[in-house]
Structures are given as structure tokens and as C-alpha cells.
């Protein structure tokens, strides 16, 4: 078996090791700020119909100008974005109904909301290196300032589906921008086990536990279906892979792979041809695991999931691949028919 796939098989347990401790600690810190369950979002008007778009921060978002096309379409369904895609959405003129945030990292994630406290470029090179939002690569401080202004302006129109694991700095920033927070617990382990952390959390705060799928984009899809009850879900920017030509140095886990594998780090990347575009995208073990998990969840879900990314690596049973414009046109047409019949 390829090295990358072998490592991917270990990532369910590895993710628990990575996030459980800090996630639970954040749940304790966030506890006094928890006012609403995410289930209340199900009773809140968020767009019309049973269709939604989930926006991830993958490179296809820019390559395919997905957000600009979404905006131009007049799409009236719910728009749910991963936190990493919030900046791209607002810059494109799309204000998501809901933003999902899960990552417990104490400093990085607040940047996706614009960090008003950032005055000098940080030593952490994550935003200069990451491939998700290149705007932050070019001029970190200017990009951050512009995002602060956008989030301050549109924050009151955006609801945040916040995992209790979310970094307190993110929670503070959302409150400052007058974004309403709706809370849920990440499912950490099998709640049927008496010593389960998920069960312990539920006992502590009574919030539902959502199976997060490894990353915030997948968690956004889970919120859209399992909480908002949407039955037709289109995906944009959920690539679960790196675009052709992306330098390995700009991939999410490059430093970690080098630390683990040394000179052999290249062997951890898995290259796959997209069957529609015929482009060769690639994943690292984490993205490969995210993809496997998404496919497993989508197969079992009682909804239709449409991959409208026009790129990426999310292909398989349970996923229907369709161009974004076709998905949007069918949704607009269905809405028109519904209004006529109604």
C-alpha cells in the first residue's frame, strides 16, 4: 500500500489525539457563553426551499469563480460556509447565512474572521504558506484589516454554528462582530461507551453532538443536512485535494510530513485524475482521509449531495458530480415551479 494511504488509515485515532484534549478544555472555557443550541437554527428562516450550498475554502473556489457565479445566479437557498471561506464569500458579495467553526487552534482560526488585534505579521507562517486563501499570502496585514471591516459590516447578518471546541478567541471575535452563535458538540468518540467523552460533554451542556468528518468543510455539510434538514446540497470549494501545480511546501501538512518522514515526505502525496476535468489533483494523507470519510457519510445520508466544485477529488458513490451552473439553474427552476404551483 502507498505510504500516504497507509498513514491515512491511522488518522481517525490521530485526530482524536490531536483535538480531544484542547477541544474539551475549550468547551469548559466557552461554557458561560453558550446561549443557544444549533438545533434552534432548524427553526430559523435561512433561505428558501430544501436546497443549500456549502462553501469550502478549496482552490476550485477561485479557479472556477464559484462564488461570483453563485451571486449572479440569484440562488435563494441556504448558504453555509466553512470559516476559512468566509473572507472569500464576503469579498465576492456573498453573505452566508451560517458560518461553521470547529478548529480549537488558539491563534490561527480567528484570522478567518479578521483579527482586530493583529498589528504585526506573526512569526507563525501558516497564513503566508497556506493555499486556501492566497489573499493572506500576499499582504497579511492589509488582508486582515480588510477582512475585519467586512466581518464587522456583515457580522450581524451571519449566524455562527460554533463547535464547543472552537477557540475562545474566535468566540470573542464573533461576539464583537455581533454574530449570533449557535452551539454544538463535536462527536469525539462512540457515545454508547459509558466512559465516552461525547457522552460526558452532552451531560455537561446538553448540546447535540455532530459527527464532524475530520474538517470544517465536512462539518458544514453535516450541519446543513443533519441540523438544517436540507435535502439537496451543492458543494463548492470542497475539493479535499490540492490543485495541479501546487508546491508541496504550500500544502497544509508539509512541515508535519517532513518532520515525520524526512526526505521521504513526497511519498505521502497521492495523485489522482479528476474524471471530469482530467486534471491530476493530489492529496496528502489528511485530505485523503477527509475524502474517504465524506464518501462514507454521504453514502449513508438521507440527502442528495452534488459536487459542483468542477475540480478536486471528491468523487464516488453518494456524490453526484454536476457543473455549478446546472445545479443553480435546476434550483432556480424548481423554486419558480413551486411558487407557480403554490
Amino acid at each position, binding site marked *: 500500500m502507498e505510504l500516504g494511504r497507509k498513514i491515512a488509515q*491511522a488518522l481517525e485515532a490521530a485526530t482524536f489525539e490531536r483535538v480531544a484534549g484542547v477541544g474539551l478544555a475549550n468547551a469548559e472555557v466557552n461554557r458561560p457563553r453558550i446561549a443557544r443550541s444549533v438545533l434552534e437554527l432548524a427553526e430559523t428562516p435561512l433561505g428558501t426551499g430544501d436546497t443549500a450550498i456549502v462553501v469550502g475554502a478549496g482552490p476550485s473556489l477561485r479557479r472556477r469563480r464559484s462564488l461570483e457565479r453563485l451571486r449572479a445566479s440569484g440562488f435563494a437557498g441556504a448558504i453555509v460556509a466553512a470559516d476559512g471561506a468566509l473572507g472569500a464569500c464576503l469579498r465576492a458579495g456573498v453573505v452566508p447565512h451560517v458560518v461553521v467553526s470547529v478548529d480549537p487552534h488558539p491563534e490561527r482560526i480567528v484570522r478567518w474572521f479578521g483579527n482586530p488585534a493583529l498589528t504585526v505579521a506573526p512569526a507563525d507562517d501558516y497564513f503566508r504558506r497556506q493555499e486556501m486563501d492566497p489573499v493572506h499570502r500576499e499582504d497579511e496585514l492589509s488582508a486582515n484589516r480588510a477582512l475585519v471591516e467586512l466581518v464587522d459590516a456583515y457580522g450581524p447578518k451571519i449566524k455562527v454554528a460554533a463547535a464547543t471546541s472552537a477557540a475562545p478567541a474566535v468566540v470573542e471575535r464573533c461576539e464583537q462582530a455581533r454574530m449570533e452563535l449557535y452551539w454544538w458538540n463535536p462527536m469525539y468518540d462512540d457515545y454508547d461507551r459509558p466512559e465516552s467523552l461525547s457522552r460526558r460533554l452532552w451531560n455537561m451542556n446538553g448540546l447535540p453532538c455532530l459527527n464532524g468528518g475530520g474538517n470544517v468543510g465536512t462539518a458544514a455539510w453535516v450541519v446543513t443536512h443533519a441540523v438544517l434538514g436540507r435535502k439537496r446540497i451543492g458543494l463548492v470549494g470542497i475539493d479535499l485535494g490540492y490543485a495541479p501545480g501546487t508546491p508541496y511546501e504550500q500544502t497544509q501538512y508539509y512541515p508535519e510530513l517532513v518532520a515525520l518522514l524526512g526526505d521521504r515526505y513526497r511519498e505521502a502525496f497521492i495523485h489522482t485524475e479528476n474524471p471530469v476535468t482530467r486534471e491530476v489533483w493530489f492529496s496528502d494523507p489528511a485530505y485523503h482521509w477527509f475524502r474517504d470519510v465524506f464518501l462514507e457519510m454521504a453514502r449513508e445520508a438521507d440527502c442528495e449531495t452534488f459536487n459542483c466544485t468542477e475540480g478536486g477529488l471528491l468523487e464516488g458513490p453518494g456524490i453526484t458530480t454536476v457543473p455549478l451552473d446546472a445545479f443553480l439553474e435546476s434550483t432556480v427552476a424548481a423554486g419558480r415551479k413551486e411558487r407557480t404551483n403554490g
Partner: protein
Amino acid sequence: MPEFLKGNYKLAASIEDKADAADSTDEFEKKALSRLGGSICFVSKKGLIWQGEAQPAGGAAAAGEATARTASRATPENGDKDKAGGAGTKDSPGA
């Protein structure tokens, strides 16, 4: 291992305890792998949502015991649902 190496002489080579070495290798791999993990867990063979002991019929998005418990524990800060309209686009905020 060390008890078999006791004697009235000194060894020129240092003896490595392989069990300890294996443990530390495992520990290193575990730590290194954990840095490759995701930002949120996935629990295989479980559903998308668990709402506590008394799962309400209707599943997704249904209000149930857990919701009621949460609502009863929570103190809405400014929970005027009508106030916060939907989003959409900048030109046409709200749904």
C-alpha cells in the same frame, strides 16, 4: 535485561533496552501522526448527529429532549430570531 548483565567487569558497549526503544518509537510515531490529524473528530459507524439519550423521532433538525434541556439551561442574550434576517447576497440580504 539489566539483571542478566550484572558482573564484575565493565562493558565497553552500552546495551540498549529494546523494549524501551520500541515504546519511545511508538510514542514518537503517535505524536507525529497526531500532528497530521484533522481539526475535528470523525467517529465511524455512527450517525451524523446524537441528541442524547432520548433520541426524538424525525431525526435531523427535530427538537427533542436535548434541545429542551439546552434551551432550559441557556439564557438567550439577544435571542430575537426575527431581528436577524437571513443572509443571501449583499444586494439582496435575507431570503
